[in-house]
C-alpha cells in the first residue's frame, strides 16, 4: 500500500470517502511522522487526540452511510497564531507561555466543522514577525531542504509561517494554516517548494487569530498543490459577524472552478519587479513562468506599478504602528506572563513583563511603531505611509485595467541559511520585497513552486489577482503547476 503520508488533501479526502483506507489509518500515519520529526522543530504542541477524534468521527459517519463532510478524515497542522480551545497558544512568544484559550478562532472552527482534525500547533516567527522563523521563542524551525553542495547548513524555512511550510514540505501534514501580513504564507511556501494562498483581505475571519497588523493580517492555506489550497481555503473562508472587516459574501466553489485553460487571460508583468543584483536564476524562473502561462493560452502584457519601491518602507511604518497598538494588550494583568520584581509598582510590572516576554524583533517593531506614532511624527510617518498605501493600491487598480492577473517571482532568492541574515534586520525585511505590495493592497496572491535553483533549492512564482478573484489566481497557479512538473521533495535526514 502507498505511504498514506505521501497523499495530499484531495487524495486523502477522496480515499476516505471511497473506503480505500480509513481516516484513523491516515491520522495514525501522520501522528507517527510528526513524532519522528522533532529535529525540524516544526510543532510546538502535538495533539494526536484531536486528530484521532476527528478521524473516528469520519469513519463512524462513513460506516453509518452518512454524507461525509468536505474535509472528513483530513489531518492538518495549525499555525500557533490561531486560538484553539484547551490547546496552548503562544504565537511563539514567551509572553503567552502557558496561555490556554477558552475559545476557538473562527478559521480553526470552520476547519473542524468541515471535518478536519488537528495534528498540532505549528512553530512560527514570534507574533508572525520575521521572514526566517528565527524569532520564535521556542527555537528555529529547520527547513527539511538542504543545499546540494554536500554541506549540512541548516536552512531557513521562511517565515513567519515557517513551521507550516516545513511540516507540509516534510510530509508531516498534507496541509496547514498560515497567516500572511506581508508575505508570511507566500515566502515560506516558495522556500520549501509548496503552494500557499493569501486570499483577499476579509475573506477569512480574523476573530481568534492573534493580531499583528490588523489591516493586513489574513489567514490562508499552505499545501502541496493548488487543488489542495483551493479545498482548504473554501473551508477556512466565510463571513463572520465577529470580525468587523469580514466580507459579507458567499464563498465561491474554488475547487469546482479550477481550470488551467487560460485562453483570453491577460497576464501582467510589472517591470518594477526586476531588481538590480537579483540572482539570474530568479529572472530565468520568471521567464519560464511567462512561457508556461503563454502555453496555457494567456497573453502577456507589460504593466507598470510605479510605487513598488515605496511599498516596503511604507509597510515598515504601517505594520509596526499597528503592532505597537495591538500588542499593548500584553501587560501581565489578564493573561500570559507576569514579571513582578520585588517591590515593583504597576508601571514597573508592565515594563518588566514586556521586557521579559517579548523577543528582540517584537520589541524592535513595537519601538518603531511607537516612534512613528508619537507626537510630532505621526503625520510625517504614519499619515504619509497611509497615503502611499493608497497610491500602491491605485497602481494595482490601473494595472488591472490592462491585465487580469500579475506574475512575479515570490522572493528575491531561494532559502538562506539560518543566521545568515539575522544580524541585519533591514536585509531580512528586504526578503519580502515582492510580497508586501499586494498585501498593502489587500489583494489575493499565491505562490506555487516553479523549479529548483543550482543548489537544488525550491523557487516560487507569485500570482497576484484582482480583489475577490481567488479563482483567477488559483487557475493561473494550476497552469504553472501542470507545466512546472515540480516533483522534487527534500530527502529525509531528520
Amino acid at each position, binding site marked *: 500500500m502507498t505511504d498514506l503520508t505521501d497523499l495530499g488533501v484531495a487524495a486523502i479526502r477522496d480515499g476516505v470517502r471511497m473506503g480505500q483506507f480509513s481516516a484513523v489509518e491516515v491520522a495514525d500515519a501522520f501522528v507517527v511522522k510528526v513524532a519522528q520529526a522533532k529535529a525540524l522543530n516544526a510543532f510546538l504542541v502535538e495533539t494526536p487526540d484531536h486528530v484521532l477524534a476527528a478521524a473516528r468521527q469520519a469513519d463512524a459517519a462513513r460506516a453509518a452511510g452518512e454524507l461525509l463532510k468536505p474535509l472528513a478524515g483530513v489531518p492538518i497542522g495549525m499555525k500557533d497564531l490561531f486560538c484553539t480551545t484547551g490547546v496552548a497558544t503562544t504565537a511563539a512568544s514567551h509572553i503567552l507561555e502557558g496561555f490556554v484559550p477558552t475559545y476557538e478562532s473562527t478559521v480553526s472552527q470552520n476547519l473542524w466543522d468541515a471535518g478536519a482534525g488537528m495534528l498540532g500547533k505549528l512553530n512560527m516567527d514570534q507574533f508572525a514577525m520575521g521572514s526566517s522563523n528565527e524569532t520564535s521563542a521556542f527555537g528555529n524551525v529547520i527547513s527539511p531542504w538542504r543545499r546540494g553542495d554536500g554541506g549540512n547548513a541548516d536552512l531557513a524555512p521562511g517565515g513567519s509561517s515557517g513551521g507550516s511550510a516545513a511540516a507540509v514540505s516534510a510530509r508531516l501534514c498534507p496541509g496547514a494554516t498560515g497567516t500572511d501580513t506581508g508575505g508570511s504564507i507566500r515566502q515560506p511556501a516558495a522556500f520549501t517548494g509548496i503552494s500557499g494562498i493569501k486570499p483577499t483581505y476579509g475573506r477569512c475571519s480574523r476573530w481568534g487569530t492573534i493580531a499583528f497588523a490588523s*489591516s493586513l493580517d489574513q489567514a490562508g492555506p499552505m499545501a502541496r498543490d493548488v487543488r489542495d489550497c483551493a479545498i482548504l481555503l473554501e473551508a477556512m473562508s466565510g463571513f463572520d459577524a465577529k470580525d468587523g472587516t469580514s*466580507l459579507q459574501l458567499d464563498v465561491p466553489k474554488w475547487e469546482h472552478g479550477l481550470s488551467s485553460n487560460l485562453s483570453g487571460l491577460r497576464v501582467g508583468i510589472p517591470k518594477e519587479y526586476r531588481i538590480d543584483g537579483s540572482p539570474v536564476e530568479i529572472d530565468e524562473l520568471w521567464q519560464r513562468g511567462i512561457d508556461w502561462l503563454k502555453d496555457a493560452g494567456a497573453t502577456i502584457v507589460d504593466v507598470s506599478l510605479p510605487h513598488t519601491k515605496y511599498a516596503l518602507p511604507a509597510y515598515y511604518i504601517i505594520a509596526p504602528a499597528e503592532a505597537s497598538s495591538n500588542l499593548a494588550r500584553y501587560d501581565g494583568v489578564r493573561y500570559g506572563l507576569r514579571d513582578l520584581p520585588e517591590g515593583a509598582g504597576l508601571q514597573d510590572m508592565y515594563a518588566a513583563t514586556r521586557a521579559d516576554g517579548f523577543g528582540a524583533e517584537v520589541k524592535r517593531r513595537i519601538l518603531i511603531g511607537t516612534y512613528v506614532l508619537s507626537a510630532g511624527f505621526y503625520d510625517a510617518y504614519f499619515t*504619509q505611509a497611509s497615503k502611499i498605501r*493608497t497610491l500602491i493600491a491605485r497602481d494595482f487598480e490601473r494595472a488591472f485595467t490592462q491585465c487580469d492577473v500579475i506574475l512575479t517571482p515570490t522572493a528575491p532568492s531561494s532559502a538562506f541559511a539560518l543566521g545568515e541574515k539575522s544580524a541585519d*534586520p533591514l536585509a531580512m525585511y528586504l526578503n519580502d520585497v515582492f510580497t508586501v505590495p499586494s498585501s498593502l493592497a489587500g489583494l489575493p496572491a499565491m505562490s506555487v513552486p516553479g523549479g529548483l535553483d543550482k543548489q537544488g533549492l525550491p523557487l516560487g512564482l507569485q500570482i497576484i489577482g484582482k480583489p475577490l478573484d481567488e479563482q483567477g489566481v488559483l487557475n493561473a497557479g494550476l497552469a504553472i503547476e501542470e507545466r512546472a512538473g515540480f516533483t522534487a521533495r527534500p530527502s529525509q535526514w531528520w
Partner: protein
Amino acid sequence: MAVDTTTVKKIAGLARIAITDEDAARIAPELDNILGWIEQLGEVDTSGVEPMTAVIPNTLRLRDDVIDADPLTGGGKRDQLMTNAPQGDHGFFTVPKVIE
C-alpha cells in the same frame, strides 16, 4: 544621529518596555538605520491623496442593540476570562497597589 540612546529610552518608556542602557545603546543605531531607510517615503508627492483607511471597501455593520447578541462574544463570562489570569481574586484581576 536622529535616533539616539535618549530617544530609544523615551520610546521604550512610552511602549512600557523596560530597557537597560546597554540595550538602548545597541538598539539606537538599528532603529536609526531602519528609520533612515524609511525616510525615502518623503520624496513621494502625496498632495491630494487620501490616506488609506480600509483596504477593501466594506461597510460597517450594526448589530441588534440587545444584550448578548452574539453569545460567543457576549457577557457573563467572568470565570472563563479569569482562567488565564496570572493573578486573580474574587473574580477580579489583581495588580500591585496603585494608591497609597
